[in-house]
């Protein structure tokens, strides 16, 4: 027992004296717990969406206002669909919603079979977020319809427009026109009765409220935005409320015009490459620490060359591996999964730039840690966090806004964006330039820091 306690005490002392180990035993798990807690327990998770209001009518404005008020969505009103599409392609928003010019007019003729279309252009790489956006739009469409049918002014106008549309419809026989007209008359009568009942109920509610206030009673007010309370028993019993709605959400994925809509692998290929870069970092990140552990670092320092050249040699090996890995992935993607690449020269440029960036990043990691164990464990932890916040593991949809902002600090998010830009986002060179510049900066900074760290270690 004495021996066991002595060894345990010694090992605990060693652990506490190695600050890196102590950090990864104590601080890092805490940070990870906070990280996941923020992801899965956060209250504000709005999905960035661009909205273009092409229709000048009140229904379109109401619909857009409803979207803006939805805390699930972070709406950015843009003036044109071109700008909105560009925002999706650049990854700034998960989807763009187009409320077309004919929205109000189509909606007014809803009783005559017309449907108002709302277009949604989704980012194929953000399917989860896009799915949520489409779901939200369906919800708002349903609410808009309920408002429309329960608002006397709107439903009267709608019936009138629908009757007019019937008269002007050349494809209908007089018999069909007569039957539909009868239906509309019945609906009009139903609306009138519903409106009368609603008005009576509102009056009774008001009287009750006045009496309640006189008696000190605090009855709640069920009116919404000055409208009468909404009763939706029919929609509650309907088997599929979206089947014949007058507003239709028409979603599509946004890809380069020159390519077919990307396959799943085209979307996951950039993520795959990001994980390939992670592998390269893992393979070379502990290189210098390994040299020190082996004692060969001394021989390298004694060779007639500078430390910078030793570092350059190591980073060249890393760069070559990154390129080889990318070429292999590309071959598999194009030959095995028929992924079509929108712009080959830009893809080559993106891969070379990413390889440079991650080689530099690897050298910084390599020089940062003194021993091999620290280099491996801490290096892997840092890379894992960067991949996670860069969108490599957890979809951005599930991240709180501050983490989405933080993802811009991750080289992986820029690498994925650049590669996606060349593969299927249809980036022009100028659109890819910011990503490339950031990656080049990361690479250069990595080499610089790596050199400084290793020089410092060599002198220690």
């Amino acid at each position: 027992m004495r021996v066991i306690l002595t060894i345990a005490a010694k090992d605990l002392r060693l652990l506490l004296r190695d600050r890196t180990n102590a950090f990864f035993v104590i601080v890092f798990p805490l940070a990870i717990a906070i990280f996941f807690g923020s992801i899965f327990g956060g209250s504000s998770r709005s999905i960035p969406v661009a909205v273009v209001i092409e229709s000048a009518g009140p229904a379109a404005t109401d619909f857009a206002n409803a979207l803006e008020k939805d805390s699930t969505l972070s709406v950015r009103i843009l003036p044109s669909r071109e700008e909105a599409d560009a925002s999706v392609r650049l990854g700034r928003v998960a989807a763009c919603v187009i409320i077309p010019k004919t929205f109000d007019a189509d909606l007014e003729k809803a009783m005559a079979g017309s449907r108002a279309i709302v277009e949604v252009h989704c980012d194929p790489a953000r399917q989860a977020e896009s799915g949520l956006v489409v779901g939200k739009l369906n919800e708002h469409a349903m609410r808009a319809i309920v408002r429309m049918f329960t608002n006397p002014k709107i439903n009267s106008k709608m019936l009138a427009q629908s009757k007019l549309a019937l008269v002007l419809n050349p494809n209908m026989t007089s018999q069909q026109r007569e039957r539909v007209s009868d239906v509309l008359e019945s609906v009009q009568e139903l609306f009138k009765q519903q409106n009368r009942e609603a008005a009576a109920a509102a009056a009774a509610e008001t009287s009750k409220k006045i009496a309640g206030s006189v008696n000190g009673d605090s009855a709640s007010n069920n009116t919404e935005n000055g409208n009468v309370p909404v009763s939706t028993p029919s929609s509650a019993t309907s088997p599929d409320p979206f089947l014949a709605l007058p507003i239709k959400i028409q979603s599509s994925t946004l890809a380069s015009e020159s390519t077919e809509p990307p396959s799943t692998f085209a979307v996951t290929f950039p993520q795959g490459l990001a994980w390939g870069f992670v592998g390269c970092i893992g393979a070379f990140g502990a290189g210098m620490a390994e040299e020190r552990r082996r004692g060969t670092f001394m021989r390298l320092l004694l060779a007639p060359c500078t430390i910078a050249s030793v570092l350059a040699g190591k980073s060249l090996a890393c760069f070559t591996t990154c390129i080889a890995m990318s070429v292999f992935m590309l071959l598999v993607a194009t030959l095995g999964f028929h992924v079509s690449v929108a712009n080959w020269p830009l893809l080559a440029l993106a891969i070379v730039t990413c390889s440079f960036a991650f080689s530099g990043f690897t050298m910084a990691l390599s020089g940062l840690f003194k021993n091999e164990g620290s280099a491996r464990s801490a290096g892997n932890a840092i890379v894992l966090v960067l991949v996670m916040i860069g969108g490599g593991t957890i979809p951005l949809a599930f991240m709180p806004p501050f983490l989405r902002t933080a993802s811009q600090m991750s080289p992986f998010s820029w690498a994925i964006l650049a590669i996606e830009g060349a593969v299927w986002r249809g980036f022009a060179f100028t659109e890819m330039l910011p990503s490339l510049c950031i990656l080049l900066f990361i690479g250069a900074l990595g080499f610089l820091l790596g050199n400084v760290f290793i020089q410092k270690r060599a002198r220690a």
Partner: protein
Amino acid sequence: MLVLDDLVKNFGALRAVDGLSLRVNRGEIFGLLGPNGAGKSTTISMAIGLITPDAGSVTYQGLGSPTHHMVRKNVGVAPQTLAIYQELTGEENVLFFARLQGVDNPCVAARDALERVGLTARAHDRAATYSGGMQRRLNLAAAFFHKPPLLLLDEPTAGVDPQSRTNILELVRELANEGAAILYTTHYMEEAQKICDRVGIMDEGKVLVTGSVEELLAKHGKETLVMIERPGGETRISTNDPLREVTSALEAGDVTGLRVERADLETVFLSLTGKRLRD
């Protein structure tokens, strides 16, 4: 060839090397002897420019300071830790360092070095499959393949089998005979006595004394001890002339056993520090 002048190195509160001065000449093996922690490896690191001394200087005569990497090309080092790549073959290891050094014909240099350490037959095997002694020999080959004028060998025989030890010691002697200046650190006194032309005894960062083995034994070694066993008991005689004492004992007869313990460097170390080398 190598001149260390009044070197001082502190690690925090610990003074690892304290005013160390020595000189190693061409064709000479200078043994730096001392227990573990005496400051030998720190001295080597300063001698090759990997550690900057807090005070004092290191000079390679005719070449300059080892802080310049082109000057360091003239040094071969076999560190105490095996500085080889276990995943590479013996030949690949030496070839890599030869290429790094910019040797004219690295393949020939690597083959020659491996032949001299007796690893030709295993040149294409991975170093990880070598025995401890073979790895030590490979570590040495990676130090001298470029025939440097100065060799720093830090405990080159640590943990090796007797056969490899003999091989290494013979090779070190050959290299010195070819003109290399060799600084050889060890805590094996018998090794130092066997191959070193001069030795310096080091303890607690200081060189206590330098000179040839004979000089040190004469000056700091105690008299030879002759132990004569007779049926009545054992007699111990300290003498400067053990041969005379043995002869007279044998002439007197009745001797059942004889033992002679000559003074060695261990005795010198004990005499100088008051403690045994392996304390």
